[in-house]
């Protein structure tokens, strides 16, 4: 395993406060919300695991250990998920976009969920304009569905929240902003 201090980007003599700060900044960067439906989500997940392990290793002496850390990756699947679309969702999650699209083209019931999943396929492919049109259609057909609304809101806010910070000023954020930001992110991007 690589040096935990190096993973967190702090020196060996760093104070608890510094370590915590570095850790939180990293968590903010690699948080699952930033890699929502991203084809590289698996790499971000690995990175997050590495960061959590490093943080655990560094703080082992101080705390009781076994810190599960922020941002454990769990997919929030919709409760309304229908049988018909289970195969499509599995294909999308596995990254087989062509197969998912083929499955979708065979489905006759082209309601809100069908449009949403088409949007997911295009989003992962990087076809942002089409993806957004499909998400809009899905929300139009079923405005009460939180999953569809979130997907559209995520795109309209310009994608990953971390990206929208101004360049070169990550140090100007205090802990309050950080916590509030994480809370907002949670509200915006998940159920």
């Amino acid at each position, binding site marked *: 395993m690589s040096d935990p201090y190096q993973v967190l980007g702090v020196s060996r003599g760093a104070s608890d406060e510094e370590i915590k700060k570095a850790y939180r900044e990293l968590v903010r960067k690699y948080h699952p919300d930033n890699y929502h439906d991203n*084809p590289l989500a698996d790499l971000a997940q690995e990175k997050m695991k590495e960061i959590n392990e490093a943080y655990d290793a560094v703080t082992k002496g101080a705390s009781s250990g076994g810190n599960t850390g922020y941002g454990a990756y769990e997919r929030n699947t919709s409760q309304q998920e229908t049988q018909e679309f289970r195969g499509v969702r599995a294909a999308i999650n596995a990254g087989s976009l062509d197969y998912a699209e083929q499955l979708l083209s065979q489905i006759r019931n082209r309601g809100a969920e069908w449009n949403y999943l088409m949007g997911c396929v295009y989003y992962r492919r*990087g076809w*942002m304009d089409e993806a957004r049109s499909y998400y809009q259609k899905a929300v139009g057909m079923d405005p009460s569905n939180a999953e569809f609304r979130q997907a559209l809101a995520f795109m309209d806010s310009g994608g990953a929240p971390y990206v929208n910070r101004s*360049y*070169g000023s990550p140090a100007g954020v205090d802990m309050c902003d950080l916590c509030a930001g994480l809370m907002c992110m949670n509200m915006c991007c998940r159920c």
Partner: protein
Amino acid sequence: MFGYVRPLKSELKVRELAQFEAAYCGLCHSLGKGFGPLSRFTLNYDLTFLSILLRSGEKTARFERRRCAVSPFRKKCVACTGGDADICAAYSVILVYLKLEDSLIDEGFFRSLPARLMRALLRGAYDKAVKRSGNFAALALDALRELHELEAARSSSIDRTADSFARILAAAAETEKDENVRRVLSQILYHVGRWVYIVDARCDAAEDMRAGRYNPLVSRFGISGGEVPEVCDRELRITLANSRAMMISAFELLPEGAWTGIIGNILYAGMEQVTEDVFSGAYRHRQKRKRTKWRVDE
């Protein structure tokens, strides 16, 4: 279509600026050495970015001091060439040559004379580059043929047209050996390509409309009258922001190296600035001024 991907110089560290210039010179030297002095005219910012991105695996950057025609007396600091660093020169020649061919289609005989001349002069370099770049040229030709078909059919999908162009850039990541890094690079390059295509289309939209030429954005939004309405710009901003989110989230997964700072500057700040300038019209205005200044100087 070239020159959109550049750093925001005011935000670069002094060291990073020197590195960027060294990479620029490095690509120029690779071009001269590999493909003859004329190929040096294909040098541009976008390909410099590509060469930097392909160097992203370097933990420490290596430099050498060299003279050139532009700086014959004082030696300049140049990023080391040779080996993998030279492949970008081949890409550069191929892309500029294909771009020249592309511009011949749109123009009349006399207006296209300079492009014809330049193409004839670059022919030898192009043939050499095709041989050295594996199947990059074949991929690029295929994608461009597809793009021409879409343009001829006046496609109303910006995703489909941008995809052909984006795939060409993404193909440049193929030489990377580490699979995870290759995925990251190809994701960055795909969205850089997509962004460039759309930004370029936005930049030319008004002129294309007046000249009656095909423009993907004009077809997509069904606009006419010579101006791009605010509603369309809002949609375009969203689609561009999402592409940038994709490239930045990919960039954050790239292992830290000697060039990380510059790449970050270009993706976070440089492209942001160019996007703003293109939407406000400042970018086009600047390009025009540069061109007219050239003519006056002649």
